[in-house]
């Protein structure tokens, strides 16, 4: 047992903390490449996720080139357009957001925030990253095989996904996509196991569940969701691989392709949809819950005010997590389901809006009368709240069967989900990077560049996605590379599409500012000191910045309070860190 000495309140016995046998890396390879340190793994995860995310960003620009200026670019055929759309969606949802929030922020923040030296199973954690990396390599590989990557749409619906009419359907594209997903899931499960067990077993003395920062609550609950939801995608991928390679008929009905009767028969494409969305809907919350948690901490810290309704926030996170498993079929209203099922899923969908709205109210009430510092993390957080609210409101439209049916498969849906799980979480990612970069690197990001980055990204995103709602309401379908001369589509749609594309290019290019800021500040940024935001949580109280191997020096911190003690009356500063026993004369310690 490692005994943690404590000096301040004499009544407290020494804490018993589980013995941690830290793995000490000896060579460059084991220290920086095959590292078992969660912080290094976090940076590896983030680096790979951002790199592949940039590929998806370029793909989205190519999509916009085609939509904004159809027939101008010869290299974009309908086939390549479908490939761009598919890979853009899949990369953004799975390989960027999931990996970045859980693999990146989860790995970096969980051990530091709960007062642990590392993850519970560091070796498994390392394997998790390398399998993820392999999954990304396989995914990238599919761009270079004959026939190119799959163009089946990110939902990979059968039967079209594995037929010759779809790009990559008969080639290697779809196979590599499925293999890559399966690898991703295996890798993620290894990581997820770590995040859950570390939160359950690795907390330092005094860090009860109700003293966890909301960031940890968000990541923890999202990981539980992911562990239970990803198996559905794994089952679907494995069965589809069998359908594609060995001609089983799990999902494939009997069909005729170019006059040839295929050997498939009896399979159920709806079965795939159920499996896919049983994963797909929790996936929305796998991305959203960490964002909720992070944004709560950012707002509280930068408004110098305790989070409003901490308990409600925790209950809402858990409630949203549980509810997210019984709403999946609202993605399938047009699949011909029984009307009563539609009614059931519409009801659960609207119920999930209650805890979500509760969180929004609590953020706003946290800001109310706060000492709001309008720095970059705060701006991104505010941007998130507004954007998430916007996306949530259009979600109310789409959650209702009767409104969803005419809007289904239109650009309105595209605008909705980009607002709610594209732009909103990405704003949080940026906010979180501006917030924690000083801890990771020891230097501040440039504030002026950060603000320019924020305003271009935020306003630009609205210029992209707000008009898209109107295009969708007119009835413009999604997934069409060209609109042609349809009578119901007015000419203004084409103008609007060009405008959206221009806005998209500007937002895309503005991200170079961010990357430049990241690299420039690494060497030239203003030194941040250990706790530049005067934040309360444990990661800011480490003896070294960036935190050394083992995080906390010889003794693990003891936790005396919840993570939101800002502007405490009677305290010498305007915050009390979680490991601060507080003014000695206070009546606090029991």
């Amino acid at each position, binding site marked *: 047992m490692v005994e943690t000495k404590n000096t301040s309140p004499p009544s407290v016995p020494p804490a018993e903390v589980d013995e941690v046998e830290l793995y000490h890396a000896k060579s460059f390879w084991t220290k920086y490449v095959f590292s078992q340190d969660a912080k290094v793994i976090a940076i590896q995860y983030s680096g790979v996720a951002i790199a592949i995310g940039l590929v998806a960003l370029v793909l989205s620009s190519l999509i916009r080139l085609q939509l904004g200026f159809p027939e101008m670019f010869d290299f974009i055929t309908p086939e390549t357009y479908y490939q761009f759309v598919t890979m853009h969606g899949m990369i953004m949802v799975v390989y960027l957001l999931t990996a970045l929030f859980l693999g990146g922020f989860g790995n970096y923040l969980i051990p530091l925030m709960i007062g642990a030296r590392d993850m519970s199973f560091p070796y498994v954690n390392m394997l998790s990253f390398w399998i993820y990396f392999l999954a990304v390599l396989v995914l990238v590989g599919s761009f270079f095989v004959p026939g190119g990557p799959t163009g089946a749409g990110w939902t990979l619906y059968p039967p079209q996904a594995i037929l010759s009419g779809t790009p990559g359907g008969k080639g290697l594209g779809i196979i590599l996509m499925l293999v890559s997903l399966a690898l991703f899931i295996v890798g993620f499960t290894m990581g997820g196991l770590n995040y859950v067990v570390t939160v359950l077993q690795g907390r330092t003395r005094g860090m009860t569940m109700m003293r966890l920062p909301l960031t940890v609550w968000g990541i923890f609950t999202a990981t539980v969701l992911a562990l239970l939801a990803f198996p559905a995608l794994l089952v679907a991928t494995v069965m589809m691989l*069998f359908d594609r390679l060995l001609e089983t008929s799990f999902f494939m009905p009997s069909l005729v392709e170019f006059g040839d009767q295929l050997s498939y028969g009896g399979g159920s494409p709806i079965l795939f949809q159920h499996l896919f969305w049983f994963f797909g809907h929790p996936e929305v919350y796998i991305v959203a819950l960490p964002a909720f948690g992070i944004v709560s901490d950012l707002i509280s810290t930068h408004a110098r005010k305790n989070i409003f309704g901490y308990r409600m926030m925790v209950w809402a996170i858990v409630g949203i997590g549980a509810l997210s498993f019984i709403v999946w079929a609202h993605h399938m209203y047009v699949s011909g389901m029984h009307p009563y099922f539609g009614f059931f899923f519409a009801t659960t969908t609207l119920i999930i809006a209650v805890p979500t709205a509760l969180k929004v109210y609590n953020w706003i009430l946290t800001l109310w009368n706060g000492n709001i510092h309008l720095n970059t993390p705060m701006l991104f957080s505010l941007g998130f709240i507004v954007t998430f609210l916007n996306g949530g409101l259009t979600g109310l439209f789409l959650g209702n069967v009767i409104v969803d049916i005419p809007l289904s498969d239109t650009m309105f849906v595209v605008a909705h989900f980009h607002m709610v799980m594209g732009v909103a979480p990405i704003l949080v990612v940026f906010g979180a990077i501006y917030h924690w970069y000083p801890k990771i690197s020891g230097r501040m990001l440039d504030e002026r560049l950060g603000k320019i980055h924020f305003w271009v990204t935020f306003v630009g995103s609205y210029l992209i996605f707000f008009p898209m709602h109107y295009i969708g309401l007119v009835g413009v379908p999604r997934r069409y590379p060209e609109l042609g001369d349809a009578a119901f589509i007015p000419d203004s749609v084409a103008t609007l599409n060009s405008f959206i594309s221009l806005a998209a290019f500007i937002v895309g290019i503005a991200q170079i500012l961010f990357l430049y800021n990241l690299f420039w500040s690494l060497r030239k940024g203003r030194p941040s000191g250990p706790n530049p935001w005067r934040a309360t949580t444990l990661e800011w109280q480490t003896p070294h910045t960036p935190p050394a191997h083992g995080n906390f020096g010889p003794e693990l911190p003891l936790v005396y309070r919840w993570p939101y003690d800002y502007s405490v009356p009677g305290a010498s500063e305007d915050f009390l860190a979680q490991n601060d026993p507080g003014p000695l004369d206070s009546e606090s310690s029991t």
Partner: protein
Amino acid sequence: MTVVLIFLAVVLSTSIWWLSHQRLGAKPWLENGLDSLDHGSHRVSLPKAKVGLLVILAVVGMLFTLLFSSHFMRQEIEDWRSIPLPNMIWVNGILLLAASFYLQFALVAARREALQVKMLEIGAPKPVNIRHNEKNNNSVRYLLTNACVLTVAFLIGQLITWLELAGKGFFLSGNPSSSFFYVLTGLHGLHIIGGLAVLFHTTALSRSNIQLHKIVNKIDLCALYWHFLFFIWCAMIFVMLGWTYDPFIELCKRVIS
């Protein structure tokens, strides 16, 4: 998806039951100090490897339940013809059950050993009913080795069922029922192989000079995993035999609709 939802309800209610013991109603902003919140909300009182295994079991359980659900949904389509399950599966079942039992016995023996070591440490008098140390060590080794052998025999048995089915003309493709048979048993086999790697390691440790009480936890994990995989195997056979389908599911359907 009913089966999935039932399984999910079990997992989620267990989690929420655990959470409800974490004083979710506490007002952390009022309760400062090291201990005020600490009562009754300690970490789970299990070794972290075991918590890890329980998490894995939940994930594996989810995986198989999803396949069972898919099986039920696919079964409702007209082209479904159930295949006759080879009789060999019953032999395999007994082999896996026996391995599971052997592991449980090994666990009991190893725990007894661990208790004995602890008692020696605190200087308690040696209880009469505890068997001799060396003998105990030998029996754990013997039991673990038997579990390994039986599990390998189970895997070979599963291969024989595959060959038997293939001999009758039921291949992976062609009949959805046989597709599910191969996928389910294959996936189950893969999980067994994964567990075997750990079991082999544990057995090798028990045959080396290591003191038994140091590997009790490992044996515990193996035993739990084997019981779980035996349970999954039973559920699998249950689903594939279609016992749950005809009378019971029909009844449930009538009740629901």
